Structures are given as C-alpha cells and as structure tokens.
C-alpha cells in the first residue's frame, strides 16, 4: 500500500517537474512542411505560420526563416519568387518559412540548440553581438558591394556593424528589413478647439513651452468637474525615454558597465519634468491609465500629444480608426541636453548563417529583400498606397516617397520631415538605439521603468527613487555583462 502511494506520488511529481522543466527546453513545432511541388506552393496556417517552397532547376537549397505580417508576406514572397527565377539554374529550392513575432525567438533558440540554423534569418541590433560572439552569423563584407550599402540610410549602415568589441564599427553583419523610430504626434482637431498654434516641425518645444501647451489642452469638456481631455499620455517603458534622452540623459557610463542614475542631474531634472506631468494632472493618472491605456485614449480623441511609431502611421491615417486630423512633431527638449529632440529607433535586419553552404547566394537574396527598388516602393506605399515602413533606400525616400506624400497619393502626415530628421540626425533631431540594445538583456532597465509609477502616484520623490533603484539596476546589469561574456566560454 505504502509503495503504491509512493509510486503514485513520485509519478505525479515527475509530471509536475516535467511541466516546469519543459519550460527550459523549448521545442520546435513545425508548421507546414513546405514540400509542395511547382514554382511556389506551400502550406498556410491560420495562426500566422506558413511555409512556401519555391523551386528552380539547380542543386542549392536555401532556408529562409522570418516573421512578418500577412500584407508584408505577399510582397516579400513575390521578391523571393523573382529571386528564384533569376537564379533558377543554381537554386533547387528556397523554403520561405514565416512565423509570428511572438513565436520567432522561441523557435530560433530551438534552432540554435539543435544546431539547425536557417540560411537567412533576422537579427536585431541588440542581437548582433550575441550572434557574432556565439558564431551564428557571418559578415557580409565579402558578398555585398559598397554601392548597395551606400543606398541605405546612414544609421542602418552602422547599427549592424560589429568589430568584436563595439557595435557600430567593424564588419557589416546584416542588411535592414526595416527601421523605425518613436516620433511624437499631436491631435490637430484638439489644437484647433483650444485655439493653439500647431507645433513647428523645425523647432520642437522646450520643456516649458510643452507644459504650457499641455495645460491649454487639459480640459473638462462636459463640465462634470472631472478632466476628460489631457495634454499628453505616456507609456512608461517606451514613451518616457524620449523625454529623458532629449535632456541629454544616459543611464549607463561610456563602456556600458556602470549604471549612473543616483547622481545624475540631467536624469533627475528630466524625470521630475516627466513625472510632474502626471502629478499635475496633465496626463491621465496612473489609475486612469491602468483602466484605459494612452493609446486607446488617443484614438478616442482624449489626448493632445501621443507617441507615434512609424508602424502606427497607417492606423492613425485610417479615418475609421482615428477620425481626427493629426500630424507629427518632435519630443520636447530639456535644458540640460544638446538642444535637439531625441528619440529611440528600432530596426530588424536580414543576416546569414555562419554555417550556410551558399553564403554568396544568401547574401544576394538578403540584398534583394533589403534594397530591391520595386519591393521598397511596395512596402513604403509608393506603388501600393499603403505604407508599412519608410523606404530603406535613402534616395527613394527623399524622391518618390516624399513626392507621393506631398501629392497626396500616399496617406501620410505632412511633417514627415520629423521622421527624416530623427533618422538623419540633423540640427533639431536625432534618433539612437536604446542603451538596452547594447547590453545582453534589458532586465536592468525594468526596475526603473516599472518603479516610475510610484513617483507618479506621489509615493516617493524622484531623488529617493533614483537612489533606491540604482543598486538593483547595477546588480542586474552585472548579470547581463556576465551573460554577455559567457559566449566566449
């Protein structure tokens, strides 16, 4: 009897352990085998996963593994089909497998664990160091000519370079699929109602000017004694840093080994400015924000200013989603910085496996996906009228793309100059990668962005918060540095 009980207990525990242990041993669920015949047939799942096999007459097989949305997939699939046609004597098959963004990292870790890497896959700026140090990707220098690289925006030429020590220098490891930045947007309709002048795209507001405008936009519209329209709404994780960067804030020292927040005057001033927006009622309160986020309130016309990523433009231009007039502007500029408006940028790029048997062919495919002019015209909306991203090709952006915007052929806010300014880094604007993109993980920043709500609730002062949070951030950064170094073990 006792033995039976023990056996039952042990088995039930083993099942429990396996459930938990299984969390650490990711498995790949293959969606679609891609074993179709014909030029381009494949399997399509309703969950965002698909696999297409495009066949030629040659003997080389390329496996491409990416994530993208449905409307993008058609454009890129077309480019791959063209590529197979152009190289049909070399290529036996290109397996074009697409998954969702959520599943992508898990599947990639499984591929790495199994040493079964696709030939072409994605790499974000934050991945370059990890992938290179662990021997997963190879430089493109020998396969992509300089003329192709020169067509790209300056920033996307540098963020995928790595010299073994520093990001931004050395060999080029990837070509951009897209790039974006978190600009600022304002609701023109609310400005008109308040009788305010629109923001000047050439000269972003100062902190003080911004507060005055927000005060004018914060109103009790229905006269019930409660504010129902606010100057601005922010998301603490991503919507906060542009205010701080625009006051010259850096969270880490030069070599990214020490957290510098407790005795950082620029940060103290910027964070005070940022949290005062909430404490003074110019943004929804923390409780109100938890009930209905800033994004939804912006869409409902309750907010004067809100962040706008390049990926948001299509939704904001859609009258059914956002029935208001709006345009782009810069984040407000603090007194302690370089006088320019700063924001963070993001990008994802195509890279090629170090183990691929066909690096030259992979590099050609990557170059086509990244820089093919017809493809870029389609994804940027020049030929489709629906912009998913800005063109990767700088000249195309300043030429046909801008013309399409100015002619009204492409729905896009007229102050597109703000985005260009951020990417170019001109006299008024600059976009940079976040510091978390340079460290092994972003965990060290979590105590900061999650703790800011305590200041906004009035539970702690800025000074006390910064002094309190620094040791925890430093400890987590030390972990990240150790993990970063583990690639060399």
């Amino acid at each position, binding site marked *: 009897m006792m033995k039976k009980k023990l056996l039952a207990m042990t088995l039930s525990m083993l099942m429990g*352990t396996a459930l*938990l*242990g299984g969390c650490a041993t*990711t498995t790949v669920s293959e969606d679609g085998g891609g074993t179709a015949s014909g030029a381009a047939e494949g399997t399509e799942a309703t969950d965002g996963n698909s696999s297409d096999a495009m066949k030629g007459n040659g003997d080389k097989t390329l496996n491409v593994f990416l994530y993208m949305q449905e409307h993008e997939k058609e454009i890129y699939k077309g480019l791959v089909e063209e590529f197979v046609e152009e190289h049909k004597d070399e290529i036996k098959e290109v397996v074009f497998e697409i998954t969702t963004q959520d599943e992508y990292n898990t599947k990639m870790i499984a591929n*790495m664990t199994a040493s079964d890497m696709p030939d072409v896959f994605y790499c974000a700026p934050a991945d370059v160091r990890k992938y290179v140090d662990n021997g997963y990707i190879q430089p493109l220098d020998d396969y992509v000519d300089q003329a192709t690289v020169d067509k790209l925006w300056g920033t996307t030429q540098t963020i995928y370079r790595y010299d073994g020590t520093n990001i931004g220098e050395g060999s080029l490891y990837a070509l951009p699929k897209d790039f974006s930045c978190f600009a600022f947007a304002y609701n023109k309709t609310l400005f008109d109602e308040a009788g305010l002048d629109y923001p000047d795209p050439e000269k972003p507001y100062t902190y003080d000017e911004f507060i005055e405008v927000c005060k004018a936009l914060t109103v009790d519209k229905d006269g019930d004694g409660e504010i129902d329209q606010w100057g601005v709404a922010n998301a603490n994780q991503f919507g906060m840093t542009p205010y701080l960067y625009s006051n010259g804030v850096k969270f880490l020292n030069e070599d990214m080994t020490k957290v510098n927040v407790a005795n950082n005057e620029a940060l103290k001033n910027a964070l005070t400015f940022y949290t005062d927006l909430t404490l003074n009622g110019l943004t929804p309160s923390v409780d109100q924000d938890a009930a209905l986020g800033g994004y939804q309130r912006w869409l409902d016309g309750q907010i004067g200013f809100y962040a706008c990523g390049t990926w948001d433009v299509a939704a904001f231009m859609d009258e059914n989603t956002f029935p208001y007039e709006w345009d782009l502007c810069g984040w407000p500029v603090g007194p302690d910085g370089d006088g320019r408006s700063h924001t963070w940028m993001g990008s994802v790029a195509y890279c090629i496996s170090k183990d691929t048997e066909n690096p030259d062919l992979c590099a050609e495919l990557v170059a086509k996906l990244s820089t093919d002019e017809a493809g870029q015209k389609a994804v940027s909306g020049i030929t489709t009228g629906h912009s998913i991203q800005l063109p990767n090709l700088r000249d195309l952006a300043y030429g046909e793309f801008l013309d399409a915007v100015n002619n009204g052929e492409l729905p896009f806010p007229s102050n597109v100059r703000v985005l260009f300014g951020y990417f170019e880094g001109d006299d008024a604007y600059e976009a940079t990668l976040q510091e978390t993109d340079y460290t*092994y993980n972003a965990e060290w920043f979590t105590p900061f962005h999650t703790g800011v709500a305590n200041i906004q609730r009035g539970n702690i002062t800025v000074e006390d918060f910064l002094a309190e949070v620094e040791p925890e951030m430093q400890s987590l950064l030390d972990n990240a540095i150790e993990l970063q170094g583990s*690639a060399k073990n």
Partner: protein
Amino acid sequence: MAGKNKVKVRMSEMAKREERWAWLFIAPPFIGFMCFMAYPIVFALIVSMSRWTGINSLWGNIVGLRNYIEILQDAKFWQSMGTTLIYMIGIPIGMILGIIIAMGLNRNLPGKRLLTTMYYVPVVSSLVAVSILWAWVFNYDYGLLNGIWKIITGQHGPNWLGDEKMIKISMIIFMVWKGLGGTIILYLAGLQNIPRDYYEAAEIDGASGWEKFRNITLPLLSPVTFYVLITSLIGGFQVFVEVQVMASNGGPNYSAATVVFYLYEKAFKNGQLGYGSAIAVILAIIIFAITALNFWGQNKWVNTDI
C-alpha cells in the same frame, strides 16, 4: 534469499509471444515517458547548474550550484514565492464554497442541472479568454465590479488590478471562481457515494443536521478533500496564465507575480535559461515536499472506508 531460490522457468512459445506483445504495448508510453519526461527533467537539472542562455555553449558555462545560491538570496524570488503562497488562501475558500454548493445541488432542487452546468462552465473555458474577461470585470473605470460598487455606494470603487493589495485579492477571487466548478463536481460525486443508511441511522439516534454533517458527511468526503487539496496545491504553485494576462508586467511593484511568472520572465524575457531552470527545480522540490507531507499526514484524517 530470494536470489538463491530463483528457478529458471522455460517459457513456452506462446508465453514468449505474449511477452513480446506485452513489451510492444508497454513501449509507446515508456518511450514517451523517456523522451518527454525523463529527458527534459535530466536536461533541466543540468541546465539549472549552468549559465546557459539558449545561444551560448551549455557545457562551457557550467557553474555548479551558483544559480541555486543566488536564487536563495534573490528578493524577487521570495516576493513571488510569497505571492504564490498568498494566492493559496483561495484553496480553502474554494473547498468550503465547493462543499456548501455541492450539498445544495445534492438535494433535488429544480434547475439543479442548469446550476451544475453554470458552475462548471468556467472550468471548461479557455483560461486566457476568461482572464481577459475578468481583467475587464476588474477594470478601474469601466469594470462591472466598480459599476456595481458605484451604484451601491455612490463612490468610485477600488483599483482592483492597480493596487498592490487589491490585485492579490482580485487574483484570489478569480482563481476561486475558475476552480469552483471542478471542486463542486468532485464533492457532488463524493456526496452521492455516501450511503443513505448512515444518515437514517443517525436520525434514529437523534443526530442534528450539524452532527450529521460533522460526523458523517465531512469524514466520508475526506478522500475527495484530500484529492482536491493535493491537486489545488500543485496547481497553486504553477499559477502563470492569469498573471500574464491580467498583470503582464507582474502588477504594481511586482505584487501580482508568481514564482512561475518570475521563472518565465527570467528564462524567456531575459535569456537566463539556467537561472530559470534552477527556479523550476526548486519549485518542483517544494511541490514534492508538500505533496509528500500531505500523503504522510493523510492517515490521520482521510477516511477511505465507506
């Protein structure tokens, strides 16, 4: 002794064939167990002693018991463990409510089947879907609860998911609601298993309703109670989905995060698969110990003779 007396029995062809068939039948679950249980467990144990990130070398980053030592000093681990234990307040609440409702349903009331189905619906519903639903029920400005609260008191209700204490209460309410149907069904089956004679004999002896419940119903339901307790405790240590959906950043100041939520964040958000595996192993040991303790103590209160 047994070894010395071993007698070699010559098997007939038929017996051999039967044995081969037996092995064939045993093979699929055995292979399944080895591949999907034993291997992951051993692998997780090895990973737990490393700084493996999923992309670096596992064997080049073995660090012995360092992860375990760090976990024991990790304030966030203890905070999430504390929250996990607090959520277990819902287990006795669910059991008491389960017995009461099951006893009600055990009488031949009109609408009994409808009520049983209603109570069971949350159990068969998708956990993600009902978590999203309850996130809206708990919504500070637009939620059903605060709507009712305002009608009754005229005041704005509490911030169920935005306050460190209230979010724990909200989670407990949700978990009790979600698990109640299963508990009711089990208790109902248990109640229907108790012979009527016991109650009739007690009535002849003049026992009151409470005495019958205390001395007949409760003891004879103890195997069900034991089962519900064990499964709820194991489930209670593995709470994850509802936290991920209702408080995706772990709630204000990480007040809603459970151990498995913390494990997930460490392993998959921050790429520390070694550390995450060590948390999984510690959690498995705790679950094992508590279950063992329960099995050991069951002789004192679980009645298996009907």
